[in-house]
């Protein structure tokens, strides 16, 4: 279970990227975040953007229409 959950289901471009960044910016280093969304390209782009900024991607899964990205803040 992640420390925090961010729901961006229904949001379209660039919402998932922007909201994920705003959220992780406010979190403590070492804590984990679960991001849930439906915007298809963001399933790839959100973890890429987070990994590029040094955060650790723990998992990327799909539950029906919803993708779930779990990340640990660097």
């Amino acid at each position: 279970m992640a420390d925090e959950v961010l729901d961006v289901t229904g949001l379209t471009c660039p919402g998932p990227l922007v909201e994920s960044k705003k959220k992780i910016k406010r979190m403590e280093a070492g804590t984990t975040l679960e991001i849930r969304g439906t915007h298809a390209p963001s399933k790839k782009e959100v973890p890429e953007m987070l990994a590029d900024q040094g955060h650790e991607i723990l998992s990327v899964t799909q539950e029906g229409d919803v993708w779930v990205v779990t990340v640990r803040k660097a």
Partner: protein
Amino acid sequence: MTKMALIVFSGELDKALATFVLATGAAASGWDVTLFFTFWGINIVRSENKCALEKKDVMSKMFGAMMPKGCESLPLSNMHMMGLGTSMMKKRMKGKRVKSLKEMIADAKELGVKFLVCDMSMDVMGLQKEEFIDEVDEIVGVGTYLKEAKDAQVTLFI
């Protein structure tokens, strides 16, 4: 650090949205982003309720009255249809859960995007620095934009 410096010349809603999708997406990706608002583009960052401090001449007043007053009164570049097309587009975008331009401007600021306004355009259009939204960081000349653009990997004229 990757850097993007955009020249925002156009004052239409669709082009402003494209600008802010790029700017917030890049800022979320950790890029250093600068927006240089010039010519018609300065109306995007014009405040809808702030007033000029100094008295304006007739031409400046005319410009002021004819130009859009801020991000919520910009026309579309196509299919504006006296405002009908633009309001339909806004409604449709809301339905598709695209953020409004106003929300994107707030996101951009929160993620550290720099807002520069061209001093010469401001003067030509008869606007004063007090008439812009609080997000504007600085009123500058082209030299400041060029300094930012010099080491930017991405530069676009919108």
